[in-house]
């Protein structure tokens, strides 16, 4: 009996190591290691220079992502107070000028696909604001249109968790070199319903 246990233990180790890796890839845990407020990102996304873990997670959750020279991607699963994003609440994303040619924020469901909604809106970004508004803007996020006049709205599913991706195309050096400290939008929770 003891001999069988000793022989089976390495197989359990193999299964455990494989399972832990699969869980890390699926959850994205600890791979987007650069934090900036509620946003997380990694270096060398889409590149052979990325770490083994980053490459595996990006393959599953961001296949065919652009390399840093073209775009950088931030992801948020929590608001600025550390609460998980959920479609039972509404949020205001507030920010200023981003050092990039173009940027946008998109909401995704837990399945990593765009969230079905009647309006057909999935994102909002620099294209939604005039030159005067680029330095001080607000985007509303919620299951219902809580944006108000002139405020872009990203719909999400009521009661469902979601996450946000901030894309910055042709980011300037000031953003590329300061991913953890550059000024990024805040995600402020507004009202929640049961």
């Amino acid at each position, binding site marked *: 009996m003891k001999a069988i246990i000793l022989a089976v233990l390495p197989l359990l180790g193999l299964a455990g190591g494989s399972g832990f890796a699969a869980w890390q890839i699926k959850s994205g845990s600890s791979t987007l290691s650069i934090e900036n407020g509620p946003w997380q990102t990694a270096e060398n996304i889409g590149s052979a220079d990325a770490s083994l873990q980053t490459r595996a997670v990006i393959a599953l959750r961001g296949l065919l992502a652009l390399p840093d020279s073209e775009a950088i991607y931030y992801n948020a699963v929590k608001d600025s107070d550390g609460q998980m994003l959920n479609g039972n609440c509404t949020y205001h994303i507030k920010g200023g000028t981003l050092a990039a040619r173009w940027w946008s924020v998109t909401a995704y469901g837990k399945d990593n*696909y*765009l969230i079905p909604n009647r309006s057909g809106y999935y994102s909002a*970004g620099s294209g939604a604001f005039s030159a005067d508004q680029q330095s001080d803007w607000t985007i509303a996020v919620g299951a219902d249109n809580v944006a108000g006049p002139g405020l872009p709205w990203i719909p999400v599913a009521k009661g469902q968790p979601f996450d946000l991706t901030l894309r910055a195309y042709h980011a300037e050096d000031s953003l590329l070199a300061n991913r953890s400290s550059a000024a990024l939008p805040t995600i402020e929770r507004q009202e929640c319903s049961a």
Partner: protein
Amino acid sequence: MSKAGIISIVLTVIAAIIGYFGVMALAPGYIMGRAWDGVTERAGAPNMMIHMPLPSAARRGIVRLSPDLIYSICTFDLSKGDLAITVPAIDNHYWSLTMFDDQTNAFFVESDRDTKGQPISLTLSNKGTGGEGRIVASPSQKGIALVRILMNNRGEYDALDPLRRSADCKIVG
């Protein structure tokens, strides 16, 4: 603890490490292979450019598409020969061509900023030589070429769609 017990624990730790890094190392190739198969099945064959419809919640297959981009995609298999790729210039819009190897690594990317508004025309070869014109070496026989065009708003799709349809990929022998 017995000598056999110590050996078993050491082997368990080693097996766990092998399992962890094995899955991490194999995942990109496996996921890329599934994506390659899916897109190729939709196209009917590799080495053909598919002009994908406007991204929406109803479109499944490739995760986390940007709803602000129009995508054209070509799965390539260089076992059939070199691949000629052309991408038209789209004025006043961000557009790019990115090529990924079979391990998901981007080995080529060029955008309108790089071409200064000129179109892209090149030959992809896994030998990296031969033919005339611009030759780009592919690190793997199979991979994916992806064209992105950024819409200023989703209402531009109807105007941009005909323009991007001259993007093409084809075997040239």
